[in-house]
């Protein structure tokens, strides 16, 4: 059996003259939770749509469970970015309808709908029409609708947006439970906290291209660790600065500076030997948030630089 549930290679899409997605590849290991991160308008949704065969790529191909995505529709559950339900339908019927679209029996769909809704604290609105529900509630209904047929691959496009913290927590639990059931989960987000907690692997898309692929730790490892050091003894600031790597900043009583993995022990040795003492010391990996911002800024900077060079070249020509 293939180790990857989703394999998309070189996906490219033009909207008019604009290249919305440029040579994006995704490989989602079976049974994992995989995050696609990126700023607004980076091309996440278009990449997911192409991966699922909803729109055709201008170049590249996508395989789900080793086949064309259209051939395995019944094994996929999908929550689109633009939420949509028939407002006149009752919640239970709406979920059963979405299950029926993926081949689930209507009555079984209705039964599972009631179970899911009760588990998620929505039992009050089981037979309520969608139009009477809040946006968040309707979103939870749609989420249930996209997993009611127990799919092997669950694709969620920005699932957390529009949910309150309690429902976000419930959704995280649901995602983990589906993964434990054996499903593979692919989701997009621009909220790093969820990705950091949930993802086994992730890809970062910025300016239409994939800029990073790996685990959360890999992403965090892109930036040096951050050190906060507070000496116990009073000493001249310049003397302390000489002890620390270049670029150390004094804010209040503490010094802040980045440090490479290899430099940690030598620095500790220097501090111990100096006799300045340690009133406080923390060495932390930067959060995924920082890594993400770092990557996106780098990409933006290179774009600005290119644009600048182009402008100069044009002016010279």
């Amino acid at each position, binding site marked *: 059996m293939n180790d990857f549930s989703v394999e998309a290679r070189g996906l490219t*899409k033009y*909207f*008019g*003259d604009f290249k919305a997605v440029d040579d994006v590849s995704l490989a989602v290991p079976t049974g994992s939770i995989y995050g696609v991160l990126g700023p607004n308008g980076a091309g996440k949704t278009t990449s997911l749509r192409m991966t*699922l065969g*909803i*729109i*055709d790529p201008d170049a590249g191909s996508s395989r789900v469970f080793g086949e064309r995505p*259209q051939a395995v*529709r*019944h094994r*996929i559950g*999908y929550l*689109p970015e*633009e*939420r*949509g*339900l*028939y*407002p*006149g*339908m009752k919640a239970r019927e709406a979920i059963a*309808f*979405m299950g*029926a*679209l*993926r*081949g689930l029996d209507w009555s079984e769909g209705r039964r599972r709908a009631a179970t899911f809704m009760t588990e998620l604290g929505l039992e009050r609105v089981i037979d309520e029409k969608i139009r009477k529900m809040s946006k968040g509630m309707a979103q939870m209904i*749609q989420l249930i*609708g*996209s997993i009611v047929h127990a799919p092997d691959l669950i694709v969620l496009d920005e699932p957390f947006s529009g949910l309150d913290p309690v429902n976000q927590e419930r959704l995280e639990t649901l995602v983990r439970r589906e993964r434990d059931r054996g499903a593979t989960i692919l989701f997009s987000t621009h909220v790093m906290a969820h990705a950091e907690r949930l993802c086994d692997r992730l890809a970062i898309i910025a300016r239409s291209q994939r800029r990073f692929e790996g685990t959360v730790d890999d992403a965090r490892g892109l930036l040096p660790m951050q050190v906060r050091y507070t000496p116990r003894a009073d000493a001249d600031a310049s003397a302390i600065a000489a002890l620390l790597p270049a670029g150390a900043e004094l804010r209040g009583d503490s010094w802040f500076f980045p440090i490479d993995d290899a430099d940690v022990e030598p620095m500790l040795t220097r501090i111990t030997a100096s006799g300045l003492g340690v009133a406080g010391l923390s060495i932390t990996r930067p959060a995924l948030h920082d890594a993400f911002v770092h990557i996106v800024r780098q990409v933006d900077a290179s774009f600005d630089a290119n644009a600048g060079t182009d402008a100069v070249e044009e002016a010279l020509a």
Partner: protein
Amino acid sequence: MTPFLKNMFVIARRDFLAIVATPTFLLFLLAPLFMVGMGLAGGMGASQLADSARGAGRIVAVADASDVPALRAADVRLRGGLTRQVPALVIRIAGPANADPVAIAREKGSDTYAVLSGPLATPRIVEREPDSNAGRYLALLADDVLRSKAAGPLPPVAPRFESLSSGGTSIALQQSLGFGAVFIIFLLTLLLAGQTVSSLAEEKGNKVIEILAAAVPLESVFLGKLLGFLGVAVLFIAFWLVMALAGGLIAALQIDPAALASVQSASKAAAALAAAPATGWPFFLGIGFVYFILSFLLLGAVFLGVGAQAATVREIQMLSLPITIFQVGMFSLSTAAASAPGSRLSTIAQIFPFSSPLAMAARAATDDSKAVHLLALSWQAIWVALVVFLSVRLFRAGVLSGGSSWKFWRRGGRAVARAATAAAATTAQPADPH
């Protein structure tokens, strides 16, 4: 059942229930009542008008007193053989009071169509319109009176009338049956198929389309929607058919059959019913219904495809005019074909896919071959599939991909512009000094 069909029925079920289980559907179902009511009111008004006008019309013969009985006898005899109604004959005795036929023609209180005066051999006939029917009839009367005078009393002709009760139906009646079939199918399609144009607007409006597109092939979404609307149409027809049958039954029980037989129009209707289409009533009705379904699916598929490209409700409203004109065009073509069976025009109408169901239903009335209908149904079914396939391709390429591809001229224009820029760049390159 294959997954494709299953998906189709899931969509059709949703659409059917969403339409039928609303109060608006009741209004839709009962809408023909307004039409029937208006028609009745209009018809009654028109017939009253015609009745009052008919009572006032006359033709006048000014003749010698001796000719009056002969004139009356000739009028009775000749009137029975005329197909067109001639106004009532008024006979006046020649004398100074009736000397001027023009004055008689201009008398107030009645419409006088023609006045005959003078000797019967050389009568003066004043008529309201030149070469009028009424004037010719008065001349015929004079001629008849003169002949009977010259020949003397003749033994009365005693004709024996025999009717061809089993001699087959006339071509004209069959053609009118064909025309009736075309008209009914057209009317039902016009009333019911046009709705499909806005059917995808709901999914586009509430964003459900992406769920559908991700879950099932778009072909089954389109076909399912068509099927759902067809279900609504069939329900509509069945409802009115039951209403009509029940109404007819009640009327038949209420009215005395003898009175019914004496009414002239009823006997005409009975004659039309007694006429049989060339393929026989059961086959004709059955195939007519099947052709209605095909006509609905064909036109519905076109409207669905066109409507799917529209971005706003306003665009859909704008599309309804060309769509109605298209339908009327198909109707005109088919009626022209129905009135000339076997002509080249009728062959064209039978082959052209969108008029084919109408024209073939008309053919079932006049032509007794049945196998050709199987061919026509397959041909039309292929076109339904083709139209749906093309609509889906356009929808996928345009609407789902976020482009506004139905404005194909723009897309084409942009592509041409891009190609032109590229060509200009390549030709400019050799001349570039760098």
